[in-house]
């Protein structure tokens, strides 16, 4: 089609269908169940046995006069749903001291989890068991066992609740029949709150609840009716009058993402809610990018001298690959560089291969593309030219990319390079940052945003000098009234002085350190760094990592000796010194796909010993959801409120929101409470991140 002038048509864009050779049919989506007030799939106040589709994420807001809820519910696996929730109790103040918290109302956070025990079939209901508010201070703490059965447009629910959901006490607690100790529900937290209060599970009064959901003939509208097993006599908002045990609601589906709910509860209260839902597997944005080249049936006879800069430009423009070193042998081409745009390895290799197949002579039978990270070659992808062309041209019905491609540890290059891009010298960079916390006494939502300006000098591929300055642009952290808290637990204040650090200068030195890194031998990497390492600590350290290509297991060891920095974040140090280090195993298990476990054991900043377990799951869109917990030899009393360090995070690829492909990622952490135990050093350079391309998890 010579007469199609591609350059002229560059901006003529029509919606493109997917690129597979077989256009798959679009199936009707899985049912989406509405969320209950406190978050999670359910009716109005009562949770049900239903589960949403794997990867569904719902953000909810509910306003019920006495309570307001902000919820985020995640279907982490098809059989497990987790919910986090912030509750605003309008009828109470945060504290009795206006100097401490002004007129902010009482806030609480909670975490729920629900497990699917049995899937519905023709003759059996769906069965799920759930634990609500098990990890917080227990406003709504309950356990429940729920059953659900569908019959056409009616969804029937029944369940047994304990705790908050069991106050009605209309049945005898079945566990009480088995053992005496289940008849009374103990009060009080174990430790200092924040733990799993197993000693209370399934104890005390129990009640049966039920409900029905009706899908009206008009698709967007569902009606709900439930029998409430709570009596509202023991609520945090005070004693609430319950005129009727029946609650009812209407749910209006505005579109695939948005739900609106209107409810009448206790016979006397109106409730209103909004839910926004999307799915982590399918979240994506249509991309506008240069189409991958077509490989013609007749490959061009390559007689002209290969213009290497022209090739580099084409590789950058069409495959997002920046070439740093290049060598063309009679039968092989060797490229060293890094990828800028395409997260999907298959798409990346496909694009590079097509450019090389059409630009290089036919005698070149092997393309060796090495991805470099931090100036160290990380992984080499060898493309067999004949098999690749066979796939790219669709020369047979079942041509696949996989047989043409293999990944290996980069082989050493013995011949001289035809072209080297010198990447030593000065560099600068600027990044945006955003820190936020929820639930502070001064103000519920506190934030700090600004720039991280970096500059540095690369001496060669191993040595460099790096620095970063943090500049605050937008912040309300100056509203922090309460800086040093009065709790003295005997544990060194390694992290709880955070407010002193963030309240100081709007411009502060984040880090300034010298770095040496190297690949020692096949699959082994090492680095050492010294200087100002992070906001709160300066010192030095080293790390060694063992990480084979495409391996499910990697192991690293790091050791650091650091001192605590002064609040003004210049070069001064306090007297506190600590030797901290960990052995970390990074494991992607075979028996469960797309899951990564990081287990770190060692000595933490407060000189405590323990282990951190970090669990994360990756969804098809590249979004990663993770949670971590640290248990050290500090007792719950020594640790303080929360009992042990835990946190959650959501990491998302930036191009979920942009129209051009890119490889950057953003991270949204949520740490319910953070004290001094189990705290690790924020090392300025991490080998596992540097070597990511060797066995990518979060692509």
């Amino acid at each position, binding site marked *: 089609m010579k007469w199609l002038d591609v350059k002229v048509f560059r901006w003529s864009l029509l919606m493109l269908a997917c690129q597979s050779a*077989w256009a798959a*049919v679009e199936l009707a989506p899985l*049912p989406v169940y509405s969320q209950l007030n406190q978050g999670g799939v359910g009716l109005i106040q009562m949770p049900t046995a239903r589960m949403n589709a794997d990867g569904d994420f719902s953000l909810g807001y509910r306003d019920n006069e006495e309570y307001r809820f902000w919820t985020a519910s995640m279907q982490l696996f098809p059989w497990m749903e987790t919910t986090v929730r912030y509750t605003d109790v309008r009828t109470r103040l945060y504290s009795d001291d206006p100097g401490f918290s002004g007129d902010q109302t009482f806030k609480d956070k909670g975490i729920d989890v629900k497990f699917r025990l049995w899937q519905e079939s023709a003759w059996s209901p769906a069965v799920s068991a759930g634990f609500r508010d098990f990890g917080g201070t227990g406003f709504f703490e309950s356990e429940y066992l729920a059953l659900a059965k569908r*019959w056409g447009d009616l969804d029937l629910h029944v369940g047994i609740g304990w705790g908050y959901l069991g106050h009605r006490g209309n049945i005898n607690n079945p566990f009480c029949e088995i053992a005496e100790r289940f008849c009374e529900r103990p009060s009080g937290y174990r430790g200092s709150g924040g733990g799993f209060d197993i000693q209370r599970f399934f104890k005390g009064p129990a009640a049966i609840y039920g409900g029905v959901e009706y899908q009206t003939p008009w698709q967007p509208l569902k009606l709900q009716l439930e029998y409430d097993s709570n009596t509202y006599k023991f609520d945090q908002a005070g004693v609430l009058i319950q005129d009727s045990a029946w609650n009812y609601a209407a749910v209006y589906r505005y579109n695939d993402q948005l739900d609106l709910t209107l409810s009448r509860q206790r016979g006397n209260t109106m409730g209103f809610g909004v839910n926004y839902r999307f799915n982590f597997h399918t979240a994506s944005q249509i991309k506008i990018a240069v189409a991958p080249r077509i490989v013609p049936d007749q490959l061009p006879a390559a007689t002209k001298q290969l213009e290497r800069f022209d090739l580099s430009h084409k590789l950058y423009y069409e495959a997002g690959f920046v070439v740093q070193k290049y060598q063309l042998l009679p039968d092989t081409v060797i490229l060293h560089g890094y990828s800028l745009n395409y997260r999907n390895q298959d798409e990346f290799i496909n694009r590079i291969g097509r450019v090389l197949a059409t630009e290089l002579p036919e005698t070149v039978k092997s393309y060796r593309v090495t991805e470099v990270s931090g100036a160290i070659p990380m992984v080499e992808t060898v493309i067999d030219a004949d098999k690749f062309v066979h796939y790219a*041209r669709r020369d047979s*019905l079942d041509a696949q990319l996989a047989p043409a491609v293999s990944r290996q540890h980069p082989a050493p290059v013995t011949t001289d390079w035809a072209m080297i891009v010198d990447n030593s010298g000065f560099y600068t960079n600027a990044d945006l940052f955003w820190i936020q916390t929820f639930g502070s006494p001064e103000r519920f939502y506190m934030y700090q945003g600004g720039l991280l300006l970096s500059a540095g000098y690369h001496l060669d591929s191993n040595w460099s000098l790096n620095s970063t300055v943090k500049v605050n642009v937008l912040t309300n952290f100056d509203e922090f009234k309460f800086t040093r808290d009065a709790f003295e637990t005997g544990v060194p204040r390694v992290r709880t002085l955070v407010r002193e650090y963030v309240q100081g200068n709007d411009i502060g030195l984040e880090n300034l350190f010298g770095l040496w890194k190297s690949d020692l031998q096949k699959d082994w990497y090492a680095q050492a760094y010294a200087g100002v390492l992070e906001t709160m600590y300066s010192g030095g350290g080293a790390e060694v990592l063992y990480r084979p290509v495409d391996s499910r297991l990697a192991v690293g060891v790091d050791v650091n000796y650091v001192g605590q920095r002064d609040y003004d974040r210049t070069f001064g140090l306090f007297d506190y010194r600590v030797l901290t280090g960990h052995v970390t195993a990074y494991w992607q298990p075979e028996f469960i796909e797309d899951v990564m476990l990081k287990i770190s054991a060692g000595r933490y900043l407060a000189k405590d010993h323990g282990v951190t377990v970090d669990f994360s799951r990756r969804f098809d869109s590249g979004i990663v959801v993770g949670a971590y917990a640290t248990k050290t030899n500090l007792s719950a009393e020594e640790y303080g409120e929360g009992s042990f360090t835990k946190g959650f995070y959501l990491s998302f690829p930036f191009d979920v929101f942009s129209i051009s492909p890119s490889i950057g990622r953003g991270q949204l952490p949520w740490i319910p409470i953070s004290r001094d135990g189990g705290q690790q050093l924020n090392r300025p350079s991490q080998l596992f991140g540097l070597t990511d391309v060797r066995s990518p998890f979060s692509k």
Partner: protein
Amino acid sequence: MRSELSLLRRVLAGLCLFLTASLQAQSPAVLVELNGQQQGYFQQPRLAEVLLAASSDSRVYWPTAQLYKLDPKQLVAAEQLRGAVMEQLRLLSIHWQAEPQVAANLMQLRSQLANWRLAQPLFLALDPDLSRTRAEFNPRLDAGMYLLQPKRRPGFITLTGLGGDQFVEHKAGTLAYQYLTQAYGIDHRGVDDIYWLRAGPTPVKLPVASWNRNLQQLPPGSLLFVPVPAKWLPEPWQDLNQQLLQLLQSRVYK
């Protein structure tokens, strides 16, 4: 019995043709059967070239067109499966002698099954306009024999199950389970899922029972398999639905 022999003859004829074709010096690499005629290509053609031969009739409805590969080994395996399933159906209908309607339905399915032509369907988007303009939809055909079936637009859905083929008129807005009810009435309580054939490399399961059905609609010409309800399948015939499904995947629909 007669029909089975004629089928066997057809298979043998195909085998002979294939063998003689490969022995000749200048034999076509690819043979495509189209509307009862053989089209030969000496060099392996791309899909667009093959489809263009059929596109002169502008009333072809490409979404339901089908391309099959006539692979002798696969044909032999399919014939063996057909023989086994026919035997299963015969024995099952004897088992249900007491239920004359069920026995009759089983024998009806069996007699229709005996007349099916079998081949290996290929899962490719068949549209000459698409193949001509986009290289990824224009693969090169491997050497061998093929059957290309372009069709007029069918205004109905085909459901195959107990009693053989049923045809229900396609109407916009009708859901999958509603087609089932129209074809079989309430006789098919106990069928939780039906299978949508040729919608992908493997049959797609569609939930149709009162506890799992959804808002799935179907395009005209859809081919569905309705499993024999479990109540008619005693222990020795537990695999019958799986076998029927497998056999249907090799069926050449007219």
